[in-house]
């Protein structure tokens, strides 16, 4: 089965700095990857996704990098703001409709 892990359970970053959240996955057949943000008391919110035929995708202040060789996914957040403080999850799709979530990284932005 799939297991999805995160390298660091917590991450603190100074406001204005860039942050990088990493994720490792185990199933080389995974072909779709998503990052979600979950603020306290709320449901996960889609941030950005990437398919396995790409290795980089950019959004507004966020970039997702995919390295299929080492089965590694990262989320880069540029110029962090207090509102970026949340738990970030990576998730992968493979096979059927099921989405497998990682264990989450709590990002804290220090003012």
């Amino acid at each position, binding site marked *: 089965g799939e297991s999805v892990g995160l390298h660091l359970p917590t991450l603190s970053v100074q406001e204005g700095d860039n942050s990088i959240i990493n994720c490792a996955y185990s199933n080389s057949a995974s072909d779709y990857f998503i990052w979600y943000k979950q603020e306290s008391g709320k449901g*996960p919110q889609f941030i950005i996704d990437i398919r396995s035929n790409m290795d980089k995708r950019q959004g507004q202040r966020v970039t997702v990098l995919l390295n299929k060789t080492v089965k590694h996914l990262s989320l880069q957040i540029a110029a962090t703001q207090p509102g970026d403080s949340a738990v970030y999850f990576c998730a992968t799709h493979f096979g059927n*409709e099921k989405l497998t979530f990682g264990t989450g990284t709590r990002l804290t932005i220090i003012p």
Partner: protein
Amino acid sequence: DTAVSQTPKYLVTQMGNDKSIKCEQNLGHDTMYWYKQDSKKFLKIMFSYNNKELIINETVPNRFSPKSPDKAHLNLHINSLELGDSAVYFCASSHSGRTDTQYFGPGTRLTVL
């Protein structure tokens, strides 16, 4: 005008009771899901319905029974509640297909005493 809504937001009940959580989406999506998030924030899918038809049924006790009266609603009924059922339950929906973005509801925090 909330996209995915759940009721109630909080649910506190005694062991052995039966309870239901309701979910509605107004996005016109075909697929709906139930997830369970434990105290360590781990999110695990429980069920998925596409156009009222069950398509994913993870290893979940029979005490959990999803019901989809129409494609905009997916309710979760739990019989004989146990302490280990305490968690936050999230409903989600997607247009269709496994690579469509899933939109999550605000969650229902269930506490079993």
